[in-house]
């Protein structure tokens, strides 16, 4: 998925406008594409999404910590589907803190699961005003159609 987007952008099969999204964004590394991919396949998708974001946005930042040491959104491992809601909230406090500390108004994630969970946790623990978007959603929004 990252590779495909990188391919489209770098070969100019799609063209992007960096000025459309004005909000300050922050990027979330999903466990599966980053840390676990690195451990299992020897390559973590850390660089690619950041490169893609640079093509789409003017202002974005990283969470602290990030990449291999990033915190899980709290919905992984099927936990989102379990009834352990309070526990998930406890777990996600770290993610929410990270998001708040970044002072971003928009969280960009490249994972359905993380997207859903971060949205739910922001709604539950606030601030609900922060938007959550898929990485490809950001790409789609920046698309320049001739």
């Amino acid at each position, binding site marked *: 998925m990252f590779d495909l987007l990188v391919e489209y952008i770098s070969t100019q*099969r*799609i063209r992007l406008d960096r000025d459309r999204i004005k909000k300050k964004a922050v990027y979330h590394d999903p*466990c599966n594409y980053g840390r676990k991919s690195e451990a299992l396949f020897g390559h973590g998708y850390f660089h690619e999404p950041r490169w893609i974001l640079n093509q789409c946005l003017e202002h974005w930042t990283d969470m602290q910590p990030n990449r291999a040491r990033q915190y899980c*959104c709290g919905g*992984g491992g*099927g936990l989102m*589907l379990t009834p*352990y809601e309070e526990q998930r909230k*406890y777990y996600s406090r770290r993610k929410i803190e990270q998001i708040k500390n970044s002072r971003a108004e928009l969280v960009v994630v490249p994972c*359905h699961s993380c997207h859903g969970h971060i949205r739910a946790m922001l709604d539950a623990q606030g601030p609900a005003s922060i938007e959550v978007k898929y990485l490809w959603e950001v790409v789609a929004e920046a698309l320049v159609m001739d």
Partner: protein
Amino acid sequence: MNSTEVLSHTDLSGPGGGGNPAQICLGCGTCASACPMTGIEGFDPRRIVRLGQLGRFEELGESSLAWLCTMCGRCQEGCPMDVRITDMIREARDLGGEKTVPQAIGKGIEMFMETGNNLGLPDEDFGFIVEDVAEELTEEPGFEDFVLPVDKEDARLLFTLHNKLVNTQNEDLKHWWKILHAAGESWTLPGSRWEGVNWGFFSGQDQVLKAGVDTIVGNMERLRSRGLMYPE
């Protein structure tokens, strides 16, 4: 149970290879520092590893410990002894038996095994939903000529979907379609068995995991797609 039995019982040679079995654990606490779940209901990766050392996997699976884990792998990433903690969780979830699998996951797996997707959505309904969204898309400027390629043969890419996009968040289907359209990609959506999410990964049930992979491979063979686009 003595150590040799633990070793033989816990064959932890996961897909990544390498790593060490539980008993080499140093008890250092890196995992517990890493894990955001540490501290709730006595949750602590060290506890999980200790139970693993002692071969008490079933007990682990039956307790909430195993199901509170998000499998994020942060513990394992930091472990100086390279203990495969998340692999152990999968093992425990499997050994805990079906009764311990949370209802939503259990239900989803059941549906998947029956219908090919975790929602149990009939193919006709699926077709109706995606076509509806595709039609909406053509109303947006620049995408007037968008045509949704379903079951197109010989496409470069086969697209599987996360069931939640089909279920409640149909709007989000459009983002990728827009990109693919703009890029002029040759792609296709399977008309049936489109599920891209594999919950066998969560439950630790290898047979479910395998069935998920088989579905996708089946689709790729059927439609002779060269590449695969996968939501997870």
